[in-house]
């Protein structure tokens, strides 16, 4: 499946995945040229198909955990089923989840944890930014806030640095 921005005649790029939530996943694609976003919403069956293929929407940057599919999908497993060690040359992945998309979500979460605190209001503002560029903006704000010696990002800090990064969204 691929997505095309008809207006720009440009292939859309995956920007974010969410879920699965009650079996449904949200996969967001954005057009790199006009910034328009679209979301693909899967039903439980489609989500299951992806899981069965044992691939990660959003791609995988960590090596697969051995027997990941069996471990994550088989019900009524032995309690002491073998603990995963990393595949060769791989680093262990935070496991235990039943979700085929965890790899990607965990990575996103990890990226989020920069040590910088965000107030609820600031987080809220960030939510208004299209997901495509949200991570970029977040990083950029954090970087600049850090340079200025802040440890907490609130609306005021955002206002202060936003001019610099030419933030045209939200706030």
């Amino acid at each position: 499946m691929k997505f095309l921005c008809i207006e720009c005649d440009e292939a859309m790029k995956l920007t974010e995945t969410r879920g699965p939530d009650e079996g449904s996943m949200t996969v967001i694609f954005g057009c790199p040229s006009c910034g328009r976003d679209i979301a693909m919403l899967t039903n439980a069956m489609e989500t299951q198909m992806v899981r069965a293929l044992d691939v990660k929407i959003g791609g995988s940057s960590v090596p697969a955990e051995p027997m990941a599919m069996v471990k994550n999908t088989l019900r009524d497993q032995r309690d002491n089923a073998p603990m995963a060690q990393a595949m060769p040359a791989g680093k262990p992945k935070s496991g235990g989840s039943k979700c085929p998309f965890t790899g990607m979500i965990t990575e996103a979460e990890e990226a989020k944890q920069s040590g910088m605190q965000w107030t609820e209001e600031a987080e809220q503002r960030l939510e208004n930014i299209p997901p495509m560029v949200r991570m970029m903006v977040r990083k950029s704000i954090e970087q600049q806030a850090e340079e200025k010696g802040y440890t907490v990002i609130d609306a005021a800090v955002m206002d202060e640095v936003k001019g610099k990064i030419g933030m045209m969204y939200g706030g």
Partner: protein
Amino acid sequence: MKTYKDIVGDGGSDMVGQITEQAGRVQQRMATVKHIVAIMSGKGGVGKSSLTVNLAAAMADRGMQVGILDADINGASVARMTGAGGHQMAGGETGIKPATGHHGVKVMSIDLWLDEAGSPVVWDAPTQKDAFTWRGMVEAATLREFISDTEWGELDYLFIDLPPGTDKLPNMVDLLPQLSGTVIVTIPSAVSQFVVGKSIRMATELLQTPVIGLVENMSAYVCEKCGKEEALFPSGHVAKLAETHQVPYLGKIPFDPRIAMAADNARAFVTEHKETPAAKALLNLAERIGDFVS
């Protein structure tokens, strides 16, 4: 407007890349496995698993390194038959260590994962409804993981005990294009032969995967007292079936209740009753397989 072909990649997930990587893992793991032999039959209950475990024991008895992949997800029996079932699997350095059955045969089976041996295999899914549409995919992914993520190590033989039917064979050939050959099992009943005829055609015509031959199991009853063979079915039909489909006829394995008893006790019949006609037939079959792959 651009079409599907004009767009390179899939927008960031690289599904094709991920699937290629999976196949690469299989090949990497199989690099230390000399021969892969699948045991199949279109028919259930004809002795596929019994032959698999006894062939494995026969090869191991000759000093070979042997593994068995129990590809029968919904009717797994190899772990139990080889005594590997009670083993606790452990994570190794590059995957999961297989369990060890009699004669040091390495075993990977869904049974080793289940909380209770004998409980049905249920997969977690957002919906169990329409399971028939995705179940096959999950099973295929499981077999792939069993092959690629088990620390088989150096093996002379990896035997694959396939479930009854023919639907898993294409999957196997896909995963393991280097499959050395398949042994097709039948019993000398007309119905079994009819169904098995289809399996042979699937292997030869559709998949063009090497067939080691057709073996006739439970062909006759050998009287324990006098050693006389009594045919259970009219004989000669299976050999003819092999001829019709131009595959080698690998001979008969007589009926011997000790085959079932040994399996129930997780022991290897073939090495414990070497002097019986059934064991001799099994050893002969192992030899034929050895000749075929070398």
